[in-house]
């Protein structure tokens, strides 16, 4: 017989307003195994907690039911109260939700009170079957893994490494830096993007605790918070980085010169052995296996001949390593939407002078293909009239993506400013739906661009056609004046939507976390836990979580680093005690639970058990408490119920069902 204490909370008037708490307490006193029932104005307040502790001592209670707000709110708090202020096991506690799911949704006391009584009866029945549970320590590997080497990954890596923990950055491309080195200026301060990102990149390379793995991808992630076993595949670079001095002789001599440079968004060409841009980190070239004649046709080998240190190695192979990490940060960044496939009305990619925002950044960038002069890709002349079209792909549920990509309004204004700055007498038209400038002196920057003469026209461009004289006729509407507008432009820049990079879905399955409907990683809580995920030990930073600009990305990177440091500085962390448990006597070793477990936490093991005074060796299932997350799928697959879930055991739920059904 257990002695249960029922504590009904008024919650000010939140509960007492529409539920007769005294009646609930009276009804609770009649329930089986209830030794005490009482009410309090604010159970979660310090005074309320003391009230609980005193009553437990006074009435020698051994289980507690608190009828108050949702367990998702204060269950953890009440458990702490039991653990710290009483000698009760914190898991002999049940919370009946009589606020969010009762008093707040039923206005009439006549309806709310009986329902509250039912909910309390259910909680009491379950509490009677609760068993003592004990957490245990899981060791934490003091090492962090950052997937993605853009500014988010770099910033997170630097912060974690500065806190004294070794970090590995896994970057898919041949250099870290991501999109920032491609940009020319950054808003709103117009300081040079490369000048503020390349120092951080070299700081990363120089940092003793940061290991950079480029041209690498994460293939498999097993384990759990504090103990992730991560398999990383480092693709062959065909250059031995220890010997290579980065002199660049091979790049100059490589005969294969006609490969479109991804870094310059296809507006210039590169060689098969290449370094994407001068300040690349690591500042050594790699050989592009798909285009190198030696590796595809077996003829050439010029780079090996000219290399002073003999660093070229055509027989290089992928290296696959598996290492253990305590925490993982997803900083995989974004890609621009492929507008050519979606927008036939803008020429579908056939007009060379209709370019994307990133391509314009490369044009206007001093280290770009045109050394910073804004020239038309078609004939290299300087455009006199430029049209910028915003929200291409963004906020377009039919053809593109439904969401706003946040940063294009600002970098659209920046492009307009740069154009008017570099092309004397240049006329710039910006077609927009809204101008969103939600940041510190963002709007001032936009106003400044307006005053410089950028013509903002509210309306979307409906069609771009090319006249035989090369002019791009942009047909649109000025919704404010209601007129149809036609602009003969020399060049059009489309500010396209940010979308998740290719391969994000596969990575989400590898690290076992969820993607939102648009394909970005889902954060644990949009407002309260934006850099965490539902998977313990897995954090998010930057545009991997959703479109954002550089200031927010760096802020999130710092936040994610803080979370990782908060985890790694602990010697060990408490495990979740509400995990599955197998009763050996009932288990026939059928293995139904083994296939079902998403965390492969259950295995069949050979055990010698004492059964009716005989030693018998049998295969039974065994749960690895570290891996088990307590979902309970195995407990239903187990027909005799040998596998039971601690905290939500079969007996407790059955009594809870009967408590309600038979009342």
């Amino acid at each position, binding site marked *: 017989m257990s002695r249960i204490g029922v504590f009904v909370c008024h919650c000010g008037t939140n509960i007492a307003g529409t539920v007769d708490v005294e009646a609930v307490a009276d009804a609770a006193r009649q329930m089986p195994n209830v030794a005490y029932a009482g009410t309090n104005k604010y159970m979660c307040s310090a005074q309320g907690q003391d009230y609980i502790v005193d009553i437990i001592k006074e009435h020698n209670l051994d289980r507690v039911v608190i009828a108050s707000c*949702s367990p998702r709110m204060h269950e953890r708090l009440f458990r702490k109260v039991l653990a710290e202020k009483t000698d009760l096991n914190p898991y002999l506690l049940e919370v009946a939700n009589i606020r969010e799911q009762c008093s707040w949704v039923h206005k009439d006391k006549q309806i709310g009170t009986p329902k509250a009584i039912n909910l309390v009866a259910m909680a009491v029945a379950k509490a009677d079957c609760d068993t003592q549970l004990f957490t245990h320590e899981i060791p934490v590997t003091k090492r962090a893994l950052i997937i993605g080497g853009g500014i988010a990954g770099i910033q997170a890596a630097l912060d974690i490494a500065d806190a004294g923990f070794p970090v590995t950055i896994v970057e898919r491309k041949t250099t870290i830096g991501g999109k920032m080195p491609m940009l020319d200026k950054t808003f709103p301060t117009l300081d040079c993007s490369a000048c503020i990102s390349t120092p951080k990149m070299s700081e990363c390379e120089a940092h003793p605790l940061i290991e950079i793995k480029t041209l690498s991808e994460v293939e498999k992630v097993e384990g759990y918070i504090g103990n992730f076993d991560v398999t990383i595949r480092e693709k062959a670079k065909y250059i031995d980085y220890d010997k290579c001095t980065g002199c660049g002789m091979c790049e100059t001599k490589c005969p294969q010169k006609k490969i479109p440079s991804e870094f310059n968004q296809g507006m210039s060409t590169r060689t098969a052995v290449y370094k994407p841009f001068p300040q690349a980190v690591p500042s050594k070239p790699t050989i592009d296996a798909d285009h190198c004649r030696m590796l595809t046709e077996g003829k050439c080998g010029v780079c090996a001949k000219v290399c002073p240190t003999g660093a070229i190695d055509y027989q290089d192979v992928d290296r696959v390593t598996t290492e253990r990490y305590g925490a993982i940060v997803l900083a995989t960044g974004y890609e621009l939407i492929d507008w050519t496939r979606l927008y036939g009305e803008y020429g579908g990619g056939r007009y060379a002078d209709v370019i994307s925002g990133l391509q314009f950044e490369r044009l206007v960038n001093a280290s770009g293909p045109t050394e910073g002069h804004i020239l038309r890709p078609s004939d290299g002349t300087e455009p006199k009239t430029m049209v910028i079209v915003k929200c291409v792909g963004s906020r377009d549920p039919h053809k593109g993506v439904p969401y706003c990509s946040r940063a294009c309004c600002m970098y659209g204004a920046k492009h307009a400013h740069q154009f008017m700055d570099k092309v004397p007498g240049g006329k710039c038209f910006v077609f927009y739906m809204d101008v969103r400038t939600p940041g510190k002196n963002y709007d001032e920057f936009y106003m400044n661009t307006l005053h410089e003469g950028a013509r903002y026209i509210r309306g979307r461009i409906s069609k771009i056609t090319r006249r035989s004289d090369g002019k791009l006729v942009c047909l649109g509407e000025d919704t404010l004046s209601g007129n149809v507008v036609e602009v003969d432009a020399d060049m059009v820049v489309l500010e396209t939507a940010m979308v998740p990079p290719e391969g994000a879905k596969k990575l989400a399955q590898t690290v076992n976390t969820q993607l939102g409907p648009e394909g970005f990683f889902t954060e644990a809580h949009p407002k309260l836990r934006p850099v965490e995920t*539902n998977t313990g030990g897995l954090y998010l930073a930057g545009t991997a979580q959703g479109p954002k600009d550089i200031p927010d990305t760096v802020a999130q990177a710092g936040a994610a680093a803080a979370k990782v440091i908060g985890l790694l500085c602990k010697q060990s962390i408490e495990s979740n005690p509400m995990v599955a448990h197998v009763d050996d006597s009932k288990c026939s070793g059928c293995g139904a639970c083994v296939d079902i477990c998403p965390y492969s936490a259950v295995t069949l093991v050979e055990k010698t058990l004492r059964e009716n005074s005989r030693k018998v060796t049998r295969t039974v299932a065994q749960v690895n408490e570290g891996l088990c997350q307590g*979902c309970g*799928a195995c407990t239903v697959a187990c027909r005799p119920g040998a596998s039971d879930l601690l905290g939500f055991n079969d007996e407790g739920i059955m009594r809870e069902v009967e408590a309600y059904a038979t009342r």
Partner: protein
Amino acid sequence: MPRDNEQTGEFTPKILAFCCNWCTYAGADLAGLNRMNYPADVKVLRVPCSGRVNPQYVLKALQSGCDGVLVCGCHPGDCHYSTGNYYAKRRMMIFKRMVEFAGLSPERFQIRWISGSEAGKFRDTVVEVSEQIRALGPMENDAPSRAAIDAVAGTVASPEADEELFAAAKEAI
């Protein structure tokens, strides 16, 4: 607990809803946060995942006094444990067809995917299910009518029925 509401005297159904802690329970809390209003016939039983709901709970609830059972979980793909609701979907689809094959009115046992942000959908589901069960009446209404029993009587035993054994057993009950 009288089944009929004291004031109105009309039948108030008893509906048990197994709600998964990460999605539907959060959706229900959100419905409360937004002060939505829905009938009080549904009581929520929290489980960590819809994969934890054992069909034996559902049958026990239906047979010991509940008029309806609702099992809710995350939308496939959103499960906090990544696969719990896929298993729940298969189990519940098979179990629902079996109990309906055995004569249970379909509305009395329903399954819905409701995410943590779909407070409105949770309220609408509760309203809809409680109206359906209210229309069906208590579980006793599901019992077969005299005519149905006569129509079926005698057709149940399979050809190999052992008549004397059956007669002997009859007295024993």
